[in-house]
């Protein structure tokens, strides 16, 4: 009954086709429905007074003048909200031994980072609320500040959380054994210490929430700019003691998220409480300045790593120590240790070697929390691995392509298990390497590079292989006790006029989820895509599921839609068979018409089946109950993750007098399994690459030694912009996963995973003849000039 998934010449074959996103026109026409734009009747506005200190005791709070300001409806402190909201703790059971202090919407007696919200004001307008903030007096008593990652670990250092034994949040160790022996006898050992600056997501639309508690219905509705509405439905229900069925979270259009908007934020929890306290809708939109000091940050790792090779350049072992600082709390409910955990597990992933040892230490400090942000851990693991491989290549005397070709896991050697325990179903490193070499015209690039050097122009070429984690099973969060679903649900129904509606739990955050789901449904049913309507992001109507994170939308959500649609198609054909007095197996659907499967001769439009089933069921045989709405869930089985792989390359020019880097061209060869919409995949990759290039050259949250963020505005925190971005050329290898019928894996983080590693390698390539090396990201002019000893 099901035609092959990839043949593009069959009717309604949308899988593998670049069709436009159905919602693109609406968004371009300015008809997006963002939470920032939302205005509800009787809605009030919240603003927060924030701590100027990185660590201080709250001695007293005087809100009297603020309360009496005209237009102010409510002033709430930590104590007020603690009466109605239970605390949360950002730990998960499968991270053995991790600790974190309980958190409340607003602190009771101590602030732990500069920018932490302390008092909330609810007023007629945001402007009035901010007037009131100026009238609040808080008396603080400074406490010792823990900023630096080294001093945070010293014995006797001040503690971020008094009462805890140290500032260590989590330690984890991997050891396959034999590492010391291998290093003692290896022909070549290279070692480097790398640092990765903190950076943050900088979404176009900042965090936005409108909480609307209706005391009459005892019902909480939250319009929330998030990628995970079900998770928040669960959390608001449990922490505010409202039955889950009376909590509705609506996540409509969202101006970018990148993982940043799937964490619990103190302000968001507070806004829910404020609405409950006041019985009116309350809106809060973080402004850019607030975003910088309250959105999660990411990265902030220092990694010392070494690699051992034999005389011919065969990789034998790696030994890694990752130190990462995560702020004052571990983030809820996904924790702040996943990034470090992925760093130590992804290092070395593309390569065949057996001896691996890694130590991860996760440290508290008085800064805003870090947590999952696009490509969690991948860029760090990739940069460490790929830079070491390049350093090793130079030492052994191999070209960067040659050493990788020699060491990647062979395409025909799968399945494989990495020394860190990851199980790979099937990857395509060799094929990707070959494709990249040709696509870059590598030999010509090298020739050009050496010509230009003679003229004082310093070009660098860098490549980086990577492995990406996608389609996570419950092994990711579920096993740790988090109520975060790894399955998805879909409801697919035939409308009375023969169109299809699909309500599905994966969400749209601008990446085109709704487009690919409509492609899959149309493809599987046999319908024009414009007759499929996809509805996402409302816990009241869409079934419970994981939503969007960790590159799961296409692989898991897509398979859910596929399976649901196949059931619907079977049901439709059963009714058609009754009407036509045929066997269901002899029929098929093409372009919304039931046809003879063999001859494709049209028999009956599906709109006619819908008409009969919905309005003239009396004409169907007795006991026929047409099931033209199907609900279906799919939970991933088989491999715990669907790993993807790829390789990136870049060409750039370093101005050795100014330390400026000009990106010339970027290349990606990527294997995300079955591609549903090539255009969307390419743009995901490009967007991801640009974020990785931002990390490589521009983005860093810089702090003073008193814990103040010193570049928290878009004038000072540099995001990548179009003028500085190179052309990004993309090619694909397709290795579908056999775990699903669809065969799709994720692609949303692949671009980010290796872009910074490529740039790091290319800059070092450009600087090689000066004996200068860079081991720190972002790569700024200051670092390059320092390495070149120019000042």
């Amino acid at each position, binding site marked *: 009954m099901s035609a092959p998934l990839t043949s593009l010449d069959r009717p309604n074959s949308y899988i593998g086709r670049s069709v436009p996103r159905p919602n693109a026109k609406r968004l371009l026409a300015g008809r997006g429905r963002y939470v920032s734009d939302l205005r509800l009747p009787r809605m009030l506005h919240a603003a927060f007074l924030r701590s100027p200190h990185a660590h201080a005791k709250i001695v007293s709070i005087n809100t009297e003048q603020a309360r009496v300001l005209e237009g102010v409806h409510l002033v709430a402190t930590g104590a007020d909200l603690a009466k109605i909201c239970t605390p949360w703790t950002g730990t998960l059971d499968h991270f053995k031994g991790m600790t974190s202090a309980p958190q409340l919407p607003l602190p009771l007696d101590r602030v732990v980072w500069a920018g932490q919200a302390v008092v909330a004001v609810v007023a007629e307008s945001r402007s009035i609320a901010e007037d009131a903030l100026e009238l609040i007096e808080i008396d603080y008593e400074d406490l010792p500040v823990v900023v630096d990652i080294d001093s945070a670990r010293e014995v006797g250092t001040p503690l971020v959380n008094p009462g805890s034994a140290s500032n260590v949040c989590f330690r984890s160790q991997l050891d396959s054994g034999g590492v010391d022996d291998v290093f003692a006898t290896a022909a070549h050992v290279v070692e480097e210490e790398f640092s990765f600056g903190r950076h943050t997501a900088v979404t176009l639309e900042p965090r936005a929430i409108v909480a609307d508690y209706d005391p009459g219905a005892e019902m909480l509705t939250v319009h929330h700019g998030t990628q995970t509405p079900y998770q928040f439905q669960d959390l608001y229900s449990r922490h505010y003691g409202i039955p889950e069925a009376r909590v509705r979270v609506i996540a409509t259009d969202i101006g970018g998220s990148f993982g940043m908007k799937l964490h619990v934020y103190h302000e968001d929890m507070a806004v829910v409480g404020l609405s409950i306290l006041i019985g009116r809708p309350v809106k809060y939109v973080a*402004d850019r*300045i607030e975003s910088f000091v309250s959105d999660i940050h990411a990265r902030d790792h220092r990694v010392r790593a070494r690699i051992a090779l034999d005389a011919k350049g065969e990789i034998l072992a790696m030994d890694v120590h990752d130190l990462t600082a995560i702020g004052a709390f571990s983030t809820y409910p996904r924790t702040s240790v996943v990034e470090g955990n992925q760093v130590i597990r992804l290092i070395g992933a593309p390569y065949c070697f057996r001896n691996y040892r890694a130590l991860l230490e996760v440290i508290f400090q008085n800064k805003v929390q870090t947590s999952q942000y696009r490509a969690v851990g991948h860029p760090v693991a990739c940069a460490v691995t790929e830079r070491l491989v390049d350093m090793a290549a130079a030492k052994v005397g191999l070209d960067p392509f040659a050493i990788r070709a020699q060491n990647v896991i062979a395409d025909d050697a799968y399945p494989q298990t990495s020394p860190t325990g990851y199980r790979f179903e099937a990857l395509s490193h060799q094929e990707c390497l070959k494709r990249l070499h040709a696509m870059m015209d590598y030999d010509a690039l090298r020739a050009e590079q050496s010509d230009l050097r003679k003229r004082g122009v310093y070009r660098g070429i860098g490549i980086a292989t990577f492995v990406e984690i996608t389609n996570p099973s419950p092994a990711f969060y579920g096993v740790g006790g988090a109520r975060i679903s790894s399955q998805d649900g879909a409801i697919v129904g035939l409308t009375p006029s023969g169109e299809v509606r699909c309500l599905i739990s994966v969400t749209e955050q601008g990446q085109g989820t709704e487009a690919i789901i409509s492609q899959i449904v149309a493809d599987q049913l046999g319908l024009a895509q414009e007759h499929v309507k996809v509805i996402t992001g409302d816990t009241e109507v869409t079934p419970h599921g994981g939503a969007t994170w960790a590159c799961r939308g296409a692989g898991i959500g897509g398979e859910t839609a596929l399976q649901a649609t196949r059931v619907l198609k079977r049901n439709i054909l059963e009714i058609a068979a009754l009407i036509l007095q045929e066997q269901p197996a002899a029929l098929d659907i093409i372009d919304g018409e039931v046809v003879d499967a063999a001859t494709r001769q049209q028999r009956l439009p599906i709109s006619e089946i819908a008409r009969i089933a919905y309005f003239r069921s009396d004409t169907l045989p007795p006991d026929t109950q047409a099931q033209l709405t199907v609900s279906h869930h799919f939970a991933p089985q088989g491999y715990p993750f669907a790993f993807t792989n790829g390789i990136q390359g870049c060409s750039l020019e370093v101005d050795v007098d*100014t330390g400026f880097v000009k990106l010339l061209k970027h290349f990606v060869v990527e294997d995300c399994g079955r591609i549903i919409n090539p255009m969307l995949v390419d743009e995901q990759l490009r967007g991801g690459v640009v974020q990785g290039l931002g990390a490589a050259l*521009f983005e860093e949250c810089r702090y003073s030694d008193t814990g103040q963020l010193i570049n928290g505005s878009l004038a000072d925190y*540099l995001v990548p912009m179009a003028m500085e971005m190179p052309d990004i050329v993309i090619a694909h290898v397709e290795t579908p996963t056999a775990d699903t019928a669809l065969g799709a894996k994720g692609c949303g983080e692949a671009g980010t995973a290796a872009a910074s590693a490529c740039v790091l390698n290319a800059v070092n390539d450009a600087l090689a003849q000066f004996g200068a090396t860079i081991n720190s990201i972002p790569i700024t*002019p*200051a670092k390059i*000039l320092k390495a070149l000893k120019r*000042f």
Partner: protein
Amino acid sequence: MKARAFSYFRADTIDQALDAHARAGDDARFIAGGQSLVPALSLRLQAPRLLIDITHIAELRGVCREGDTLRIGALTRHCEMLTEPLIAAFAPLLRAAAPFVAHPAIRNRGTFGGSVALADPASEFPAMTLALDAEIEIAGPSGSRRLKADDFFIDLFETALQPGELITAVHVPLFRSNQRFAFDELARRRGDYALVGCGMLATQTGDRIDDIRISFFSVGNTPTRVKGAETALTGFSLDAARIAAAQAALDNDLAPPESDEVPPMMRLHLARVLLGRLLGRLGEGA
């Protein structure tokens, strides 16, 4: 963040604007393009009681020749610097600097007078008034006056403007055929404020430099003329040795501030590199 509430007054003449300012007891701000003032209001860094909109004052508009100078009205927008033929012909250094000022959306609103009045040390145009030996035309409660750009910039965001005074225009000596100019800046991203920027105007007899004015921005609290470097070049033709001498003179001319991202010695290095490159271009007849 949202601005504190303020009153708004639209002035149609210079006198109305000055009068409104005085009546507000100087708790007022003139607003021109708003590209610097509005962010400051939104961040509550400034919260005047009254905004006086000067963008409808006809006397502040327009570019015209007046004898041997070009009178550039205070309301001349950054984007007009790119399109106005009189600017291209008689103040080409301003034309050269304009594409580096912010982005098109900001250039469509931001004004020359606003930029000079604000005196951001990282701004292109204030520094160029120094290189051009411009005069600032000022109207105030006690009448009008003209001040040399050299005497205008005093300290960080501090100028010779008294409270309630308005820049009405900037006068620039007309560009002559025996003059050459060069402009460039080192910015991380196109449109950003530069790490270091520089513009220069040289008057020559043949290859010999009779007079040169070199002005840096983003190097300290004010736009900065580098007189040591100017002296090192005056009376000479440009060659490698002269360029090196001018670069070396920057050590005394500049004292860049502490900054976590661009340490003083790095900024000095970048200034030397930029000066060398610009003088190289000047020598090639830029």
